[in-house]
C-alpha cells in the first residue's frame, strides 16, 4: 500500500489525524493520570498476532507506566461470516459450519443448533441419543478445559503443563475419532439424535480414560498448587465482583468463580442432564485463582457425569425414527423404495422446518451458548445466530484489568479463556 504515491503529503496527514482521532476515542475513566512532566499515558497495542492473546485478539491498552488504565479489545480478525453462510445451506448442512465457530467446543455448537431446530420441529430425541450426546459434550468440555489449562499455563511460563494437558486431550480426540471418524469438528450430532451408535470397544476405551483422568487432574493441581510463582500471579489478581459480572451478562466459569452457582445444566436441564448427579464448583472471591480452580474442578464433575451416562446408557434408537428428518439406515436403501425416496429427499433438498423462531441455550465450556434459529418454512434457516459466551465475556476484560499491572493482564486474559473463533464467528 503506497502512502506517498500521489506525491502530495495530504494523505499522510489524514492518516495520522485519523490515527490520533481513534486514539482519542479511548476513554480514561479513572481519575486523570496527570499530564505533567512526571506522568504520561502511553497507548500500547498488543496483538492481533501475539501468542498470549489466544488467537487473533487485539488489545489497545492505555498504560501509565506499568499500570493498565484502560483497555479496548478489538475483534473481528477471524470473522468468516458463518451466520451468513448458514442461511444458504440446508439445515443439516449448517451443522458442520456452526461447529467451526468455537473451535474448541464443537459439540456444544452443534448441540445448540440441533436443539433449536428440534424445538422448531417439535421433535423428540430418543433417550439413548440424549445420553450419547451428554457423553460427548462432557468429553468435549474436558478437552476444552485441557486446552485452556495447557495454554494458560504456557502464558504464565509453565511450559510442561502444556504437554501434559495435550497428552490427555489426545485420548479424548481418539475417542471422538472412534465414534465419528473425526478428531475435531466431528459432525456427530444430527437433528434428532446422533449420527451413529458408539462402536464396539468405545465403552472400554472410555472407561479407561475415565480411570486415568482424575489422577491426572490431581497431578495438574499438584503442579499448580505447589508453584509459588504461579500462585503469586493468580491469587488476588483480576478480581471482579459478582454483581458487575451479572450486569455484563457474563456466564460460565467466570461467574461461578465469583460465587454464583449458575449453571444451565442444573438450572434448566436439557438432554437428560437432570438424571445425573453432579456438583457445580463455585469460587469465593472471583480472582484468577478461583477461575483456575473452578474449571479444574469441573473436569472431575464431567468425569462423574460421563461415568453415570455410560453406566445408565439406555437401549434403543440413536436417532429419531422420523424418516422425514433423519436418514434411513443404509441397509434399508437396498430393500425399501420408501427409504430410498426419503434418503433422496433428505440429501438433495433437506427437511423443511415450520416457520417460527427458537432460542436454545446450553451450558458451554465458557458459559451460556445460545443458538437462535428463525425458520421461514423452507429447507434453509432464515437466520442463525450464536450467542457465543466468549463474545459477551470479553467485555469483562476491561473491569478485570483496570488499574492492575500489565503482567497481570496476560494472566487475566488467559483465565478469561476467550476463543476468537467464537467471538468473531
Amino acid at each position, binding site marked *: *500500500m*503506497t*502512502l506517498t*504515491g*500521489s506525491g502530495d503529503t495530504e*494523505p499522510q496527514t*489524514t*492518516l495520522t489525524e485519523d490515527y490520533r482521532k481513534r486514539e482519542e*476515542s479511548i*476513554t480514561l475513566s479513572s481519575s486523570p493520570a496527570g499530564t505533567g512532566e512526571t506522568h504520561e499515558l502511553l497507548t500500547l497495542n498488543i496483538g492481533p498476532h501475539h501468542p498470549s492473546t489466544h488467537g487473533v485478539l487485539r488489545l489497545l491498552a492505555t498504560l501509565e507506566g506499568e499500570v493498565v488504565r484502560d483497555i479496548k479489545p478489538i*475483534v*473481528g480478525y477471524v*470473522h468468516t*461470516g458463518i*451466520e*451468513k*453462510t448458514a*442461511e*444458504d445451506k440446508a439445515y443439516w448442512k449448517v451443522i458442520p459450519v456452526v461447529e467451526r465457530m468455537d473451535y474448541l467446543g464443537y459439540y456444544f455448537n452443534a448441540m445448540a443448533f440441533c436443539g433449536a431446530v428440534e*424445538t*422448531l420441529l*417439535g421433535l423428540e430425541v430418543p433417550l439413548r441419543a440424549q445420553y450419547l450426546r451428554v457423553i460427548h459434550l462432557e468429553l468435549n468440555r474436558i478437552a476444552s478445559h485441557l486446552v485452556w489449562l495447557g495454554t494458560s499455563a504456557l502464558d504464565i511460563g509453565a511450559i510442561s503443563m502444556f504437554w501434559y494437558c495435550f497428552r490427555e486431550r489426545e485420548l479424548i480426540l481418539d475417542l471422538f475419532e472412534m465414534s465419528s471418524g473425526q478428531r475435531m469438528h466431528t459432525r456427530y450430532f444430527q437433528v434428532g439424535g446422533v449420527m451413529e451408535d458408539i462402536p464396539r470397544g468405545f465403552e472400554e476405551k472410555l472407561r479407561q480414560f475415565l480411570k486415568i483422568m482424575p489422577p491426572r487432574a490431581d497431578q495438574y493441581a499438584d503442579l499448580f498448587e505447589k508453584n509459588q510463582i504461579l500462585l503469586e500471579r493468580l491469587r488476588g489478581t483480576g478480581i471482579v465482583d459478582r454483581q458487575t459480572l*451479572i*450486569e*455484563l*451478562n*457474563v456466564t460460565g466459569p467466570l461467574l461461578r468463580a465469583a460465587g454464583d452457582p*449458575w449453571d444451565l445444566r442444573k*438450572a*434448566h436441564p436439557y438432554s437428560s442432564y437432570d438424571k445425573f448427579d453432579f456438583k457445580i464448583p463455585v469460587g469465593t472471591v472471583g480472582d484468577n485463582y478461583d477461575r483456575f480452580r473452578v474449571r479444574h474442578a469441573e473436569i472431575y464433575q464431567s468425569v462423574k457425569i460421563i461415568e453415570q451416562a455410560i453406566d445408565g446408557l439406555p437401549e434403543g434408537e440413536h436417532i429419531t425414527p422420523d424418516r422425514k428428518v433423519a436418514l434411513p439406515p443404509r441397509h434399508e436403501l437396498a430393500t425399501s423404495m420408501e427409504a430410498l425416496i426419503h434418503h433422496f429427499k433428505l440429501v438433495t433438498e433437506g427437511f423443511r422446518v415450520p416457520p*417460527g*423462531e*427458537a*432460542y436454545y*441455550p446450553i451450558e458451554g465450556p465458557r458459559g*451460556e451458548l*445460545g443458538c*437462535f434459529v*428463525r425458520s421461514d418454512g423452507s429447507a434453509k434457516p*432464515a*437466520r442463525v*445466530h450464536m*450467542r457465543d459466551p466468549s*463474545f*459477551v465475556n*470479553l*467485555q469483562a476484560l476491561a473491569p478485570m484489568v483496570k488499574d492492575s499491572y500489565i503482567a497481570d493482564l496476560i494472566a487475566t486474559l488467559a483465565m478469561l479463556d476467550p476463543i476468537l473463533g467464537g467471538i*468473531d*464467528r
Partner: protein
Amino acid sequence: MPDATELELTAQELRDADSESVLDTEFYRGRAVLVANPTKIRAVLEHLRGKGYTFLASLHGVDYYPDEPRLGVLYEMLDRTRVDRIAVKARVSTDHARIESVVDMFPGANFPEREVYDMFGVVFDGHPDMRRILMPEDYEGHPQRRDFPVGGEPVLFTYNEEQSYGKYV
C-alpha cells in the same frame, strides 16, 4: 418460559402503563415473545427488569425481508431466580433503522449492540461507542441483511489494487 396466559398478562400490564408499548405477542413452541414498540423499548425492558427478568441473556438482530418493518432487534431476557425466559422483539424499518440503546441499563449489551449495528445497520441511539465490531471499519453495507449477496468480495491483487475499498490514497 411463561405460558401463553402469563405472557398476555404481562403484555396487558405493559399496555396499562402505556397503551402503545406492546404491539403484539407471539407464543410458539413454548417461546414467549413480546413485540414491543421500538420507541418504547427501554420502558418495556425496564418493566420486565422490575418483574425479575434482570439478565439480558442475548441481544441479536434478524432481517424479516420481505416483511415490513424489515429489521428486528431481539432481547432475550432471563429471570435467574425463576429460571424463566421471555423475548422482546422490536422491529424497525431500513429507512429509519434507529432504536434506543440499553447499554446504560445492561452494560453487557455493548458488544451485541455493536454487532447488530455492524450486521444489520440498526443505529443504537445513546450507545457510547457505536462503531463496527466484526467487519472492517471502512466496510460498506451490512452483510447480514437478506438482500446482501453472499460472495462478491473482491480479492486483492496488484492489478486491481486501485479499486480496493480499503485504500488510503
